[in-house]
């Protein structure tokens, strides 16, 4: 089976160009890291101290300031997987494949944290962490399983081109569940709060301090998503450069 690391354009010049790209990625990571470091304490302060206490739910409602960004950003992450997978199949450029892989990994981490945090909120407010009859919870769990399968497929197929193509197909097909998750609360009867809890007639349904806390948290988590995706992408580019160089070392050995 032909692997990506065995493609013919394996030269030391390519490795140098990749090292230069990696340097620019590093600068981007530093800028994103500084931005996230500044915003994160503000987001925590706004969520725990600045936003008012909810009259019905009490302090447990403050969980939404992390739960909502962690619920929205996987939509973005899996949309990036969807688009990058289409572009990979169309252009056959491995950079799209690596972007899809990186975004899927970060999306799964965010979805996992969102599910845990949601269960803690459910236990605190509903008195139970999970309800299998609820469409939002069940479709989100299915979404998590789809992208866990995507990552397992990537893990077991290594750097093979066939594995990358199979993962791209799964990345495209798996995105079907995203709109189902989003609209599940309006399509079916659900105990999960719908978007009217946050937005009413195009404006925020929350008090101004709560809106501020949610927005700051959303921006901070978005920076973290980009930072993490760039870091995972960086690690994947370095890994492929190492595999190419190893193949080149084997070629040099066989020539001698």
């Amino acid at each position, binding site marked *: 089976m032909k692997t990506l690391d065995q493609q013919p354009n394996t030269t030391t010049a390519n490795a140098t160009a990749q090292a230069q790209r990696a340097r620019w990625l590093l600068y981007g990571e530093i800028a994103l890291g500084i931005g996230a470091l500044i915003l994160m304490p503000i987001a*925590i302060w706004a969520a725990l101290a600045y936003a008012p206490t909810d009259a019905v739910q009490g*302090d447990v409602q403050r969980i939404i300031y992390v739960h909502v960004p962690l619920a929205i950003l996987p939509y973005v992450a899996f949309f990036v997987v969807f688009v990058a997978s289409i572009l990979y199949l169309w252009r056959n450029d491995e950079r799209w494949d690596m972007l899809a892989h990186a975004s899927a990994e970060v999306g799964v981490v965010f979805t996992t944290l969102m599910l845990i945090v949601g269960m*803690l909120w459910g236990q605190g407010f509903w008195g139970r962490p999970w309800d299998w009859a609820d469409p939002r919870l069940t479709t989100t769990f299915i979404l998590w399983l789809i992208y866990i399968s995507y990552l397992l497929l990537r893990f077991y197929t290594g750097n093979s081109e066939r594995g990358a193509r199979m993962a791209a197909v799964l990345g495209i097909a798996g995105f079907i569940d995203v709109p189902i998750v989003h609209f599940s609360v309006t399509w079916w009867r659900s105990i999960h709060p719908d978007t009217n809890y946050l937005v009413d007639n195009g404006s925020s349904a929350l008090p101004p301090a709560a809106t501020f806390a949610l927005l700051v948290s959303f921006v901070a988590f978005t920076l973290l998503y980009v*930072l*993490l995706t760039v870091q995972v992408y960086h690690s994947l580019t*370095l890994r492929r450069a190492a595999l190419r160089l190893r193949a080149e070392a084997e070629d040099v050995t066989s020539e*001698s």
Partner: protein
Amino acid sequence: MGYLIAAFSVVWVGLIAYLGWIALRIRGVRLELETTRALVEEREAANKQA
């Protein structure tokens, strides 16, 4: 209040741990890259001498 503290702890410990794990992955791969690059250069030099 306990659920709130647990939720924030899970998120921040989880994200920091994940960030640290990625940094370790990058360091490991970078080390592998440097070792392999040195090996390629060494073998190319040996081939030229031969």
